[in-house]
């Protein structure tokens, strides 16, 4: 019986450009921590090996420090780590791997398969058929040689590849690095460990995408896992168990606000989130000034509490009521201007909406001055 962990798409060195630097740095940092957790998990579960199906690194030119940190993060598990390059870290003439070799920072228990072929681990009954990417993109199926590659008898035949299984991943129909959906069967594989798809996905009984262990986008396709695979003997069906290892939870939420109560409901939803959460919130609808003010307070509070709050309120209208206007004491021609702006923002006039916000703020500010 052989047990190993299947993971992929670590994307070490990834930068979170859309986020403020305060958020981006912890998010990048989290990827190292997750790798450390994988190592810890491997030791804890006592597996025989860890297979990483490509895109260990997000880029070829990550800094030396990043390189060293990654290999250091593997330290907790002393068994074999079997890695292949993916499209982000393809084994080019000069690559993150050649650099790692130059820096001499690859530990001896890390086995990089950077040429297509078989690497046998007889002591754990495992032969890994690797299909590394040696170019950034290929349009031929690199797993095709698996069909004819021989492995020492008695060892499990486990494929390790990076690409998109044709016809099953609707969004990536024309994507590069294709993989035949029936490769496991045709190549008589006991298991085919795939990378590239960031969500957890089973293709057939022997073929899986583990997904990225740490989410990096707001796609709810079950990222944040590693797979533990147990195969009792060559030809036996694998037993696959998933483990959640992600540090941060990424949420995408769209809210239509029209009644003051909607703001309260949103507040409750936000209250349920904490420092582990990364939220992309899209707001639309219309609010009176009071509700808008409450919303602002709510969002400010959430932004401070959540790991990151990405807000899109482009579609949210400010709709001052008559009472609002009265409360602002926008008398005389100010009232007329206010009215004009309210009319205009109905017609999708963003500038008018902004102007309205500015005017309302000025008036409120003035009022506070007067009251004070």
């Amino acid at each position, binding site marked *: 019986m052989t047990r190993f962990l299947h993971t992929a798409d670590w994307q070490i*060195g*990834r*930068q*979170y*450009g*859309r*986020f*403020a630097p305060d958020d*981006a740095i912890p998010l990048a940092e989290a990827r190292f921590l997750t790798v450390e957790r994988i190592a810890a998990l491997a030791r804890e579960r006592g597996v025989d090996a860890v297979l990483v199906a490509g895109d260990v690194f*997000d*880029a*070829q*030119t*990550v*800094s*030396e420090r*990043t390189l060293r940190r990654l290999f250091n993060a593997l330290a907790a598990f002393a068994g074999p780590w079997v890695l292949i390059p993916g499209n982000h870290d393809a084994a*080019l*003439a*000069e*690559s993150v791997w050649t*650099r790692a070799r*130059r820096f001499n920072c690859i530990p001896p228990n890390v086995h990089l398969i950077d040429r297509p072929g078989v690497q046998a681990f007889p002591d754990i009954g495992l032969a890994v058929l690797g299909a590394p990417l040696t170019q950034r993109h290929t349009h031929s199926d690199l797993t095709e040689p698996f069909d004819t590659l021989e492995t020492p008898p008695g060892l499990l035949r486990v494929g390790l590849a990076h690409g998109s299984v044709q016809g099953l991943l609707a969004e990536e129909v024309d994507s590069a690095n294709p993989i035949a959906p029936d490769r496991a069967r045709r190549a008589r594989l006991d298991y085919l460990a795939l990378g590239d798809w960031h969500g957890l996905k089973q293709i057939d009984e022997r073929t899986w995408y583990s997904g990225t262990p740490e989410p990096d986008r707001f796609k709810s396709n079950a990222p944040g896992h590693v797979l533990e695979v147990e195969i009792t003997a060559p030809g036996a069906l694998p037993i696959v168990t998933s483990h959640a290892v992600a540090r941060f939870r990424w949420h995408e939420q769209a809210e239509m606000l029209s009644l003051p109560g909607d703001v309260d409901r949103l507040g409750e939803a936000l209250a349920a989130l904490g420092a582990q959460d990364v939220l992309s919130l899209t707001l639309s609808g219309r609010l009176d000034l009071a509700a808008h003010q409450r919303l602002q307070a709510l969002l400010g509070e959430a932004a401070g509490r959540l790991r990151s709050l990405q807000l899109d309120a482009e579609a949210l209208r400010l709709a001052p009521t008559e009472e609002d206007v009265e409360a602002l*004491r*926008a*008398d*005389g*021609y*100010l*009232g*007329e*201007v206010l009215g*004009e*702006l309210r009319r205009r923002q109905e017609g999708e006039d*963003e*500038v*008018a*909406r*902004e*102007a309205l*916000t*500015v*005017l309302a703020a*000025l*008036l409120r500010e*003035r009022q506070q001055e007067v009251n004070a």
Partner: protein
Amino acid sequence: MKLQRLRIEQFKQFRQPLELVNLEPGLNLFTGPNESGKSTIVRAIRAAFFERYRSSSVKELQPWGDGGASPCVELDFETGGSRYRLHKQFLQRKRCRLQVDALALENDDAEQRLCELLGFQLAQRGESKPEHWGIPGLLWIEQGGSHQIRDEVQHATDHLRTALQGSLGEVASTAGDDVLSRVREQRNELLTEKKGEPRGPYLDALRQRDELQAALQDTQQRLAQYREQVDRLGQVQAEIALDEAERPWEPFQRQRQEAQQQLDALQLAAEQLQRQREQLAPLDRQIALLQQQIDAHAQQQRALAQREQALGAALQAQELAAQRLEPARRRAQDARQAQLDAQALLERVRAQQWRASLRREQDAAAQRVRTLDTALAEAQAHGTELARLREELQRQALDAAQLKELRALEQRWRELELRREAAATQLRWHFNHAGAAPRLDGEPLEGKGGRLLLQPAVLELPGFGQVTVTPGGADLEKLAAQLADAMATLEALRRRLGVETLAEAEARHERQRVLAGRIETLQALLAQLAPRGVPALQAERDELQGRIAALEAQIAALPAADADANLPPLAQAEQSLKDAARQWEQAQAAAQQAQSALAQAQGAVEHAQREREALRLALESEEARQALERAQAERLALLRQREDLESLLRAKQADIEAARPELLKQDVLRLSRSAEVAYQQYQERRREREALQIRLDEAGAQGLEDALATQRAALERSQRHCGELQRRAQALDLLLNLLNEKRRALTQRLQAPLQKHLNRYLALLFPRARVELDETLMPGPLRREGNGSLDGEGGSFEQLSFGAREQMGLISRLAYADLLKEAGRPTLILLDDALVHSDAGRLAAMKRILFDAATRHQILVFSCHPEAWRDLGVAARSIEALRRGS
């Protein structure tokens, strides 16, 4: 507001109290000449309201020279249904008291109340100034001030606005202008004021975005380069692997070695050939030597024939020279004879020439002698004449001075004569009978006559006795003495000169002059004939005579003259001699030449004979013949030997050429280069791999992708920020425009009531004209219907004519008053000498306007032209009368 009573005391020119009572609620007209106190009354009203009771800077209110006075004004008026009494006293007893119905206010409170009531401000310190006066400042027109309005309106704007807003309710904004200014401020932080271009933080953000974009592009480029280099490295590595597997330079090296071996073999054969070829040269040299021997023999044969020929020619030449010698000698002798003949002839010609020359000289001397003889004779004749003339001149000598003295003496004598006659007694007689004649001093007197008596005379009258006549006077005797003296002097001179009379003296002097001229002429002639004197002339003649004799002797000594007169001229004879001499020289030379030619020819003949003999002996020897034959035989043998060798060499050369050694050389070169190139390429690739690895290593260390992601993120944030700023700027711009627009519309709405009042008066003053109010409530340009043009150049109020401005100023004020009235504010209108620049027509219209306005407001008119206001519809009150009355 209705002013009912006014009382002033100790106020400027009113030391005594003056009181105006029973003021009409409408129009009130006060008249009086200048200085009567109209303006003082106006000043009093102003002071009562504007000047602070405690002000110490109002000393001008005191009567002149009265420092202890307390100027005092008391006013009764009614407004808003309340009755007011204002009592204000300045300087010495400062006080202000305002009674409002039952309420009494004192000092500051009282003044504050007045401010609020009428709409003006109090000066914090010092005298009140126009900017404090507010509405009264506008409605109370000072003397000569009705044409000005801008400042007054400005100082009253706030009060007017309040009045306007009061009438319009809450339409106006309390916060509008504040918000407007904040929006403008915020907008101008992001956009330039005029063109609305980005500035400040907005501009900074845009710049930062552009910089980021540029940096990003740079990084992208570098990354692209990096990737290219990575690809290149892959390619180079593949090529190196291929090179190392195939080693393409090795086959070239092997082929090159084979070609080199072939080439070496050929080289060896060629060297052998060369050695054999070198044998040809000595062979050729031997043949040439033999040929030379044969040739030398033939040469000697030819030389002998030449020598024979030369000998013949020399003999012939000798004969010819001998023949030529005799005629030449003959010709030389002839020429010698001709030369001697020419010499003799020349001597004869020269002798004849000499004789002719002597003869000519002799003839010339004889001629000269003759001439000299003539001249000598003439000169001697002249000499004789000259001596005679000189002798005569000596005799006749009487010079000019002597003549002059003589003349003077004669003159004196005559003068004395005349004087004596004048002094003498004149005696006249006339006798007419023939008797005995009377006698005077013994001299008978007959007939008629007369005589001068110079001394006593006796007249004897025959028959009668005698009469003694004695001339009178002593002078006569003195004169007689002088006369005798003069006569004696004259006579003495005459004797000395040897003349009888003066005439004779004159004649002698003339003769002397003529003689002198003649002598001069003769001397000149003589000088010409014999410049050196006659003896010299004589000597010359004698000398010449001697010369003639000498010449004669010379001629006689010459040989006798040639009988043959046909001698050639001298030049010809000389030329003949020269020609003859030259010919002789030539003939002599020719003869000598012929002589030496003959001698030479004889020498040549001897030499030729010797040489021919020597050569002939050498050639005809046995030894020489044998040597020739031997040389000819040897040469033929050697020629055959050389031919054999040459054909052998040709065959070998053909073998070598058939192997194409030059192509083999090229093959070696080509193959060795190919090997080299292949190897160099391999090395080059290895170097490129090194270089690429180093470069990539460096670039990899820079973390280009990290940088790119960071920059991309920064750019994204910057773009978002720019977008926000842009939207904000646009929003602020929009907001500002909207606020301005709405504010303008509102202002127009606000001004509508004021406009209405203004139009009412304007229609009376300028029918069919329009005036718009600007934002400050100031009347704008006057627009007249019909021509559509503006009155005045730029159309503004200040550019109207003075009169029109005055009228416009007044009707605008009335309109403000109407507005204030509608707002429930007190109005009181004071006109101090207004409208003095208006023509009759406009003034009439203005009176109608004033009359109309007076139905709503109390108006106090002060004027020094009572006649101009007679038709105002109210009785004029004379200030003077009022003073008298009080």
